[in-house]
């Protein structure tokens, strides 16, 4: 992975605004770990020191660390060489995706988002007009599968397949090819292990809403919901990108 800007790393440990909230700490540290700003196996500063840096109480920090532990982002070792460590390690493909998310430019991300909004929106509208009963059933099934998946890789595939199914239900090979290409391009970034752009629950809820609009044969609602879904994903990707770049 290319070298990270110092600012990106410093920002991780800068004081939190509106401090005192556990989820703010979880999100800040979780993103940083997911993005590789704090490396695999790296030891976090001592609790009192980290709490002071973030401007939160040690009680809040401990609660946040417990949550991160439950999420599999950190491990705590006892004893002389003890402390809180980032891990377990992620594989090389994740490192490559992090590099990609850092190196992609904000305007490129926006442009990808524009095309994706156009493709996903048109596909959802046409699917509402054209999907067969079998396809509607498959869409509803795929909408829920992102929440049932047990790891980031499976969530990525489940998410991608839902969108590809929508395009296939639109009966358009070209929209389907475009959707596949877009999923290949952004899917890995959206479902970066430990810094997933959407919670599986939110993704499943948005997919279910799109599938319901398609089932209701309400093309305009399906288009609007699909467009919003893409916008939410892309905004979150932009946020993660800026964090890697040392901003936000």
């Amino acid at each position, binding site marked *: 992975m290319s070298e990270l800007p110092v600012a990106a790393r410093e920002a991780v440990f800068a004081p939190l605004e509106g401090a005192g909230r556990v989820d703010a700490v979880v999100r800040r540290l979780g993103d940083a770990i997911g993005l590789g700003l704090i490396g695999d196996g790296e030891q976090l500063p001592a609790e009192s020191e980290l709490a002071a840096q973030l401007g939160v109480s040690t009680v809040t920090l401990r609660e946040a660390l417990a949550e991160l532990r439950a999420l599999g982002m950190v491990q705590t070792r006892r004893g002389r060489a003890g402390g809180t460590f980032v891990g377990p390690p992620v594989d090389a493909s994740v490192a490559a995706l992090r590099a990609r998310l850092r190196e992609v430019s904000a305007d490129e991300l926006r442009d990808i988002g524009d095309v994706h909004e156009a493709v996903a929106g048109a596909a959802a509208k046409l699917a509402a007009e*054209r999907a*067969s009963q079998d396809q509607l059933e498959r869409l509803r099934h795929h909408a829920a599968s992102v929440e049932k998946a047990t790891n980031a890789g499976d969530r990525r*595939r489940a998410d991608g397949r839902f969108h590809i199914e929508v395009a296939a239900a639109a*009966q*358009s*090979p070209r929209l*389907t*090819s475009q959707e*596949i290409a877009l*999923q290949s391009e952004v899917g890995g970034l959206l479902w970066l292990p430990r810094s997933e752009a959407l919670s599986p629950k939110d993704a499943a809820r948005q997919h279910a809403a799109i599938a319901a609009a398609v089932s209701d044969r309400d093309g305009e609602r399906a288009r609007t919901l699909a467009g919003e879904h893409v916008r939410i994903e892309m905004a979150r990707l932009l946020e993660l990108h800026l964090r890697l770049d040392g901003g936000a």
Partner: protein
Amino acid sequence: MSGTAADAALDVAVQEAAGSVDGWVAAAFAVVEGVREQVLEAAALAAVKGRPLRVSDVAGLDKLLRSHLAEPHRPRLAGVGFIPAVGALSDRPRGLEWARRAPDGTVTRLEPDLDPDSLGYYDFTATDWFRRPLATGTRSVVGPYVDVSGTDEYVVTLTVPVAHSGRALGVCGADLRLGDLSDVMMPAVRGLDGDAALVNADDRVMVSSSPRWLVGSLLHEGDPLLTRRCRLAPWRVVVHEGRYGDPG
């Protein structure tokens, strides 16, 4: 022409259209049956030698498949081949023996992504054209549909089950393009006093003589003036009153 004579002319035209489509489906199935014969011969030969079926036993298929895709072979097919059931060939758990004719005329072997962990995974075992013939033991006509991750084309697929000594070996089949189907049917309905379409069991338009109905869309119309079922596929030729663009 009197009303009755016009009706009779329409009736003849619709019958002719359905007949042309049936003739084409019959010819395509004849090709598929020929492929099945060769697979069964290979299976019988392996059985005589007292060993399981291997990839090398069906390697000879390629020449036959390519001959069916070479111009000016009719019916013109988008692809043809043998899809072994998982484990049917002892030395390759998954794989396709499928030749494809691209729209530009190039003939290639279809080599889809068969890695279940990949977004582009071609899970043919989950498709209707694979499952139905094996479940029912009879021919199947599926589509039109976007063949996601396979050919990525919008096709109709005809398949037959292949079994030897009570063991399912897979399916043999052919892909058809709607443009070729249109060439077959249109001469019968061109110039009719009414808009004609070929629709599948979902009422999805496969061929249309009028801009009134887009191919791939669902037919939302009242009772047709005339309708005739095809015998060899779950399709119907329908004619609706009036012609697109005519006043009133």
